[in-house]
């Protein structure tokens, strides 16, 4: 990149199944206040706010108006970008690199508890030929999981290991919603939602928010002693119609990752990256995303999981925070992944600290079967 863009602070709410005590602005402000307090900045110091939220989930067109005051957007610059919160970091990075703004507040909020997930997701489907089939992200993910397992021989046990490992990691994350001590057998005996996905293969309903202050590299040195830099970032879309894609592969993720790697100078992700935070709404996705990101070959996600290399203390710890399976909302997940990478790179991740973490990968995705993918590389 032409110049450096730094993350000066990242804040998150605790993730919760039902924040009925707050409305969207109150929830977002819990995370925003953390980054203002840490940096000593005020909302008046913010040149631009970039937010992600989703109109159907919030039940309001222009859902960013739910948080206008708390992001300092009164008579000021605000953009709401589509897709996951990590996409907002991408937009914020571009804004800073333009040279026209210096301090950007990135915010993502979500209250999954206030609406019916299946109906909201069904409304994401094309209106004249997909929506009428009643599809949602769960049923389409199940088709993707089946296809992935069929094509590459991935087993239900290998997927279940993800569910076990991530929820065990969450025990060391005080912000995690649902840390659990479970076994592969527990996952495999939990109730079927849509074959092959079982209840413990899926993430729970979750509410929460994440905020971040990004600045130019020059400004960051005046704000924080521990800036974390955006080394590379990119995104990519798959086709919407499931029939237009090979569901067992995630080509959009590979394209997004390769662009981010090129910007960051990553030649060998397994060697050059120290910690990975993924957005896995369902357990099989973690295996598939690791393939898409190039940590292993196509169809090798299961064996990669079996090798133990993604465990804490392994070659490439994945989701030390517990990931989405331990309870993170859609929209917020990728930004929260970046926030976790910030903590890891700063050496502030407490009991889940990955030793010597210098380079992190944050991943966010949105839509049916991970249609939209965003990848960011963070470093010192």
């Amino acid at each position: 990149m032409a110049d450096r863009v730094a993350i000066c602070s990242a804040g998150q709410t605790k993730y919760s199944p039902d924040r009925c005590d707050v409305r969207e602005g109150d929830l977002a402000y819990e995370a925003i206040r953390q980054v203002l307090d840490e940096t000593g900045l005020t909302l008046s110091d913010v040149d631009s706010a970039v937010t992600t939220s989703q109109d159907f989930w919030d039940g309001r067109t222009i859902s960013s108006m739910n948080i206008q005051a708390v992001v300092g957007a009164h008579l000021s610059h605000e953009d709401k970008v589509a897709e996951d919160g990590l996409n907002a970091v991408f937009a914020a990075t571009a804004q800073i690199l333009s040279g026209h703004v210096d301090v950007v507040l990135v915010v993502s909020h979500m209250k999954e508890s206030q609406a019916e997930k299946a109906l909201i997701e069904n409304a994401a489907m094309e209106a004249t030929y997909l929506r009428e089939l009643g599809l949602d992200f769960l049923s389409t993910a199940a088709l993707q999981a089946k296809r992935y397992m069929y094509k590459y021989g991935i087993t239900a046990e290998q997927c279940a290991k993800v569910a076990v490992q991530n929820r065990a990691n969450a025990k060391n994350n005080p912000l995690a919603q649902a840390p659990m001590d479970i076994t592969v057998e527990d996952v495999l005996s939990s109730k079927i939602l849509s074959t092959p996905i079982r209840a413990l293969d899926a993430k729970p309903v979750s509410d929460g928010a994440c905020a971040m202050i990004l600045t130019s590299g020059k400004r960051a040195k005046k704000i924080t002693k521990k800036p974390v830099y955006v080394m590379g970032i990119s995104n990519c879309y798959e086709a919407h119609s499931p029939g237009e894609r090979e569901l067992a592969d995630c080509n959009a993720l590979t394209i997004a990752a390769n662009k981010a790697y090129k910007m960051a100078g990553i030649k060998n992700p397994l060697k050059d990256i120290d910690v990975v935070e993924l957005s896995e709404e369902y357990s099989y996705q973690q295996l598939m995303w690791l393939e898409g990101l190039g940590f292993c070959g196509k169809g090798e996600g299961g064996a990669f999981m079996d090798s133990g290399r993604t465990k804490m203390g392994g070659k490439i710890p994945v989701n030390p925070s517990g990931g989405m399976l331990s309870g993170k909302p859609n929209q917020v997940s990728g930004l929260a992944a970046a926030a976790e990478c910030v903590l890891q790179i700063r050496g502030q991740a407490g009991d889940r600290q990955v030793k010597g973490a210098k380079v992190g990968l944050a991943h966010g995705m949105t839509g049916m079967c991970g249609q939209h993918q965003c990848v960011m590389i963070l470093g010192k």
Partner: protein
Amino acid sequence: MAEKKKKSEPEYIFVEFNTPRKYRWSTGPYVGKMYHEARMNKKLYANQCPKCKKMLWEPQVVCGRCKVETGWKWKELPQRGTVMQYTFIVYPMWDPHYGEKFANPLPNAMIEMDDGTVIRHFLEETDEKKLKEGMRVEAVWKENEEDRGEGTADIKFFRTIDK
């Protein structure tokens, strides 16, 4: 059903979609306090910005104008005010709570309450000739507590008063 067309002509068909999406929106503490005072005491309450001292309608955690946290300083708003601007609504507006049409006509006004706080509400007066900017009005509440609980909608309308 579309009329039968010749083979070479396209069919133009509309797909209807009528599934409602239901929401359960939280008021949060700030709007919740306003709802509570309206329901229990037929009073309008707003919180005050510590910097500009203006009352925030809707009440909230940050003053948008000053970009500062507001805290929890509340004041009761007066129930009388002056019509700043009105519009005489005659098209059939939806009542979003109940999915029905409001009765027409429906004058709707920006009202500057006597402390300077501006709120928007309906006017009782439906004779367009009697409406004017600068007219004095007063809140009329739904009388039964069980009918209240919808925040500003707990006020039926603003009634014209002499002064």
